């Protein structure tokens, strides 16, 4: 087990470097010059845009100096090498937008995104697993079909649409006033509020985003749970358990459910990367200042340091989660070994 883990960890590094190399190339080769974009007044250009100045020569010199400051005047491989060396010291550079360290900008937004995603994921599991169990224990019944149909209906509803509808109808416009229309805090919010009041305020603001984010996830997971259960129910050991007179309740919840959870446990790890990058749309609709929104705005503004940092972190999380999945699998199911195969 240990040599296997070590081997996997060692493999992780070249994979990560490969991934960053490709994403670096794609990011930098995509058309659009961050310096020119800044000269055009940032992203305010959707309406009437300023393209240039009264003295292009001066501006060109200024732009060249600006590029030099961020090393954008060097060749692409040289830039990549520099970026990689900095990465070695966990240094992601400064954002083009406000010259602030990238790690600080991400760290500031990370807790919000993780909160949002973690709550949604818990929510998905809490709903989808019982749903799957129910479907599997009542296979092909009307109620099974109804729950499956509902889950898939929810899956098919685009979250940006439902999110907007929820805001219009539930957030105090012309209709019901149940939730805030966006943001993370109320207008009069103050950090001097007592803890429970701050907690309540945050929870109230997270309600709709979490609901909208999770409803689409019920279908996949509940189907997964259902088929896993059905597969186990057909097994001989279930027959045996029933034959020796165990109650149906005990058979389902002690034997079938436990064994059916094995694959579910392993796919849990794969949601790790989703923790930081899975919520761009929800963050945009509900004005939640998270990492997804930061990355999206950075892509539009060609803010390379931020794009690269988010890419790197999410690919690292992806790699780690694959590793965790595999490891978990060997732990929960002793029949599976990787070390033999990799030797």
């Amino acid at each position, binding site marked *: 087990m240990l040599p296997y883990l070590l081997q996997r960890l060692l493999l992780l590094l070249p994979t990560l470097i490969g991934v960053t190399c490709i994403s670096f190339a794609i990011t930098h080769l995509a058309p659009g010059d961050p310096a020119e974009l800044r000269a055009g007044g940032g992203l305010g*250009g*959707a309406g009437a*845009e300023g393209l240039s100045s009264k003295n292009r020569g001066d501006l060109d010199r200024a732009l060249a*100096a600006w590029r030099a*400051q961020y090393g954008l005047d060097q060749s692409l491989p040289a830039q990549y090498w520099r970026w990689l060396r900095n990465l070695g010291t966990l240094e992601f550079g400064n954002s083009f937008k406000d010259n602030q360290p990238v790690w600080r900008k991400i760290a500031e937004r990370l807790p919000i995104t993780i909160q949002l995603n973690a709550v949604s994921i818990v929510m998905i599991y809490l709903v989808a697993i019982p749903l799957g169990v129910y479907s599997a224990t009542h296979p092909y019944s009307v109620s099974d079909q109804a729950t499956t149909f509902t889950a898939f209906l929810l899956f098919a509803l685009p979250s940006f649409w439902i999110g907007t509808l929820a805001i219009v109808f539930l957030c105090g*416009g012309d209709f019901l006033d149940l939730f805030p229309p966006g943001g993370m805090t109320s207008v009069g919010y103050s950090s001097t509020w007592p803890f429970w009041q701050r907690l309540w305020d945050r929870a109230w603001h997270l309600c709709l985003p979490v609901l909208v984010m999770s409803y689409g996830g019920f279908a996949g997971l509940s189907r997964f749970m259902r088929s896993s259960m059905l597969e186990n129910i057909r097994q001989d050991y279930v027959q045996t358990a029933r034959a020796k007179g165990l109650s149906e309740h005990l058979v389902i919840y002690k034997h079938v459910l436990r064994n059916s959870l094995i694959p579910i446990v392993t796919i849990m790890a794969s949601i790790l990367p989703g923790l930081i990058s899975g919520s761009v749309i929800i963050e945009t609709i509900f004005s939640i200042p998270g990492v997804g929104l930061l990355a999206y705005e950075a892509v539009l503004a060609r803010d390379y340091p931020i794009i690269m940092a988010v890419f790197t972190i999410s690919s690292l999380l992806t790699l780690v989660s694959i590793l965790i999945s595999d490891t978990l699998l060997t732990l929960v199911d002793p029949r599976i070994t990787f070390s033999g195969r990799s030797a």
Partner: protein
Amino acid sequence: MRVETLAQAGRKPWLALGLLLLCVSFLPAHAAEVPVTGDWLVSHMLSDPEQLNPLTSNDGGSASILNYIFENLLDHHPQTLELRPQLATARPQISDDKLTYTFTLRRDAHFQDGKPLTGQDVLFSVKAIKNPWVNAPFLRVYYQSLVQAELVDDYTLRLVAKEPYFLNETVLSQVPVLPRHYYDPDGSMDSLSVTELAALRPGDAAAEASPQGTQARKFAEQFNTNFSRNPMGSGPYKFHSWQTGQAVVLQRDPHYWGIGKEGIDQPYIDQRTMRVFNNPDAALVALKAGELDTMPLMPIQHLKQTSGARFDKQFAKHQFFTPSYSYIGWNNAHPLFSDMRVRQAMTYLTNRQQMVKTLLFELGEVVNGPIYLFRPEYDKTLVPYPYDPQKALQLLGEAGWKDTDGDGILDKMIDGQKVPFRFEIKFNSGNEIRKSVALTLQDELKKHGVDANVRQLDWTIYLDDVRNHKFEAVILGWGMPAIEPDEYQVWHSSQAENKGSNHVSYKNTRADALLEEYRRTFDAQKRVELYREFQQILHQEQPYTFLFIQKAILAVDRRFQNVKLYPQRPRPLEWWVPKAQQRYHEVSQ
């Protein structure tokens, strides 16, 4: 509604091309009532400002916040747009050669920390702009003409420009004044002069290693990174907090030096909170729910989502022109469009009245040139090109375009080759109005034997194409200054080279001469005459098909008083709320 005068007061008002900033509105002021202080104004931002350093930020969002925190030597009167004293006691003395500008400062102004504001601070601010390592390349370009700055005494500043230019006074007086003791605590910039700084070239090893270079870089490094979220100036509002992606909060400075001073705008609202809603639909709901007091409305929101007694009772909607226009730019250097008659024909085929009606829902007006409709330079005698396909076909025929092979598309022999009239209209994706303009025009052209393709591009790619003249036709917009315009950079033939703003490669010797003379003319009436002639040339030549100017709509909670209409933008600084109607009674801690 009527805008009587023309105006603009911006942070960089001399930019011929600004961001689309929102303007103005009006209500009959309650003349009998005396303004009182108190309450909050909660307004809407689509995203965070870039950063709150007045020199290194370069976006409209930051500028609209920093305007409350920082002051200039002179500012523009909101109605007349004349320069008027702010931190200076009067407009500067200008030498006969129009190169030296001497400003005298007020002695009673102080910063928000109570320290007096002197010439040292103004000089420091000028130096910070001129320091080539300070991350303000875009601002610095406008101060290229400033070659020397010195203090005559602690309250008198002398600035010297490289060449005479009628906007020098405007440019020089718009330096945001930063407190030296706060932004340069070590005094790194004290020993450097503007002349020395102007001579330094970044990237030049000798300059970087020189004592001046080392000193300038040392200052720039801390200035660029340490001051992006903690502005401090002399203005009526103090910075309170900035929660990333959520809100920026400013609070009225009770010790503001200008309180009760004649000629200085008085602030009344105690707290200004600017909340971020990335989603305009959510923002509108927030407005209706009372979480916002004011926001600009999109046309569809104005027409469909904010009608009804309930909304009207709570909010007033103000309509006003935004000083900016949309146009179709024809690549004048392209064989298809180098003939003036072809460009005129294109304008005859563009049904602009109809576009204003159906695309803008009447929230706009057709324009005939690049000058803001309310400026004295604007030539009202120009007769707009009507929609007239017959006239267009006649002009195309005169230019040699006929369908000789009967394939339904006009053609012409160019350099011994038969060329069909086929081209591409480019615009940036996500802009629905431009898309509709392109499709409408495509449809119209098709009826008359012109085959136009429509292509939408991502903004950055689009910009590259525009700057490198890689297009036949583009749909774009320019901001128009509400203060005196300078159209040199957009129309002068020299600006067609080197990625300049004359991206349609318009070249006309008479226009060049007019643009040059205009910049050297200090007599305002003479300048008006020069630009009248310039507009007539443009009107004749149609390098662009000028489309329209749009109106913006601002919803404001009715408890705010003194919401007036100005030519450039609303001035929430003047708004106030009667005691009985105030909603918030304490400022944030």
